[in-house]
């Protein structure tokens, strides 16, 4: 069922000794990570531990202070902004608050990258945009502006926009934060489905334990800019590291 790529493929994402320092504060202190093609990796950890910074380094939006970032075998860490532009198209990013262009309609948001990087006729453009919106379960909202949408719908439009250019890898920044359980469940299912149907590699940054355990193939726990433990969801559940246990217990549904 899962379209695994042959073993000769380089890892979709490879980080070696990634360090990120800003204004004298070290946010990431030597992260090593490999993500295989078609794998879903979740990065968990308390707020401020460097999850989003890590995601932005992978996306090439932040330049690492030291270390390597390889996307499908290609080192992007030290490339200039201009050189990185085409490489960014291999990746889609779903931002925490969707980051939709608020002066454009839903249609124009999803069509934004297509209009600039693909030569499509008006008809084809409309077809692709409608298809992407259908993937995320949105129809008939093309003409609305982001301000007219609910939080969950905005996130799904953000996902449709990220998927427009057929990226191999999608990075999710808190895809379920601020959503009700039903919307959160739908987003999780969507991530799973895109993975199984399109073979999409996904890196999900989240502190929503429930959502992480039902989507991820592998879970990383981060703390203070370092990876504390990593393993399958089951292994993480059984892990006896006190920080991991504290994190999981606080997220449990037991009555106080």
């Amino acid at each position, binding site marked *: 069922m899962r379209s695994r790529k042959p073993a000769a493929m380089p890892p979709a994402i490879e980080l070696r000794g990634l360090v990120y320092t*800003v*204004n004298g504060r070290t946010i990431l202190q030597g992260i090593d990570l490999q993500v295989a093609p078609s794998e879903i990796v979740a990065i968990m950890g308390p707020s401020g531990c460097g999850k989003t910074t890590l995601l*932005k380094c992978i*996306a090439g*939006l*932040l*330049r690492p202070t030291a270390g390597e970032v390889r996307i499908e075998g290609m080192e992007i860490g030290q490339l*200039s*902004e*201009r050189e990185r*532009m*085409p490489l*960014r*198209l291999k*990746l*889609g*990013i779903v*931002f*925490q*608050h969707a*980051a*939709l*262009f*608020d002066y454009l309609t839903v249609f124009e948001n999803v069509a*934004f*990258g297509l209009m*600039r*990087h693909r030569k499509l006729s008006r008809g084809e453009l409309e077809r692709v945009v409608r298809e992407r919106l259908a993937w995320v379960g949105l129809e008939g909202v093309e003409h609305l502006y982001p301000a007219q949408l609910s939080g969950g719908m905005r996130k799904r439009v953000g996902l449709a*926009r*990220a998927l427009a*250019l057929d990226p191999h890898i999608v990075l999710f920044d808190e895809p379920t934060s601020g959503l009700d359980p039903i919307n959160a469940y739908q987003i999780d299912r969507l991530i799973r489905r895109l993975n199984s149907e399109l073979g999409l590699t996904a890196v999900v940054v989240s502190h929503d334990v429930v959502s992480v355990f039902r989507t991820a193939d592998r879970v990383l726990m981060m703390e203070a800019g370092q990876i504390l433990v990593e393993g399958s969801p089951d292994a993480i559940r059984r892990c006896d590291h006190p920080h991991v246990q504290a994190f999981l217990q606080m997220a449990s549904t037991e009555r106080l």
Partner: protein
Amino acid sequence: MREELVWTDEGASEQPSLLRATLEFVGALWLLLIATLRGLFRGRFEGRECLHQMAFIGATSVPIVALTSSLAGAVITLYSTSLLLRVGGSGFVGGALSVAMTREIAPILTGIMVTARCGSAIAAQLGTMKITEQIDALRALGVSPIQYLVVPRLLASLVMFPLLGVVANFAGILGGLLIASALGVSAHVYFRSVQLFTEPFDLIGGLVKTLVFAVIVIMVCCQQGLGARGGAVGVGHATTRAVVLSMVLVFVANYFLADALFAKR
């Protein structure tokens, strides 16, 4: 060249000294200017965005530029006419105003009014886009924020500022005419004087000034917007700084341009 230094928070100090803040500002402005000039000739032309900005910066600024410059023309004429009539110099009324208008008042008022109206809006829009990650979203979609946001605004301004300057000249001279005729100078004498004392170079020099002001206003406001940090308060600070710095730099540039263009004439 690290054009991303324009919007990244990397390397920017949290509480910089005045000297350091000035150097950071000049550095970021310089980087942005170089990247924008490069984008002007090399990158994708954003026609639709450019038209939008021409309408916003140009067309919708016409009323306010016309109003303020006609009032400026009127008030100068009010003083100069009463003075000149006392020494029998009604033939100088139009000329005095038109020289002041074309060389100084029209370009300055264009720069100041567009800064107040559009510069502030540009800084606020780009600042909001920065703090809501829309700038990162652009980059993630393989679109340079400089190419998409800054270049069209600069192009639109380079076209519209001189046109607004022409509007300001007409409005100012008409405002002067209104007051002059009320004080007893005939329209014929007024226009004869305008013709006699204004040289084509006064008008051209004034419009050259507006081109320089266009670059200053757009670069400063875009740089401040893209450099905004820290939420709604940050956008507010960026907008204030954008307007203040633009206006101060317009006046500073005006002095040196006046010296270079008109001092020896």
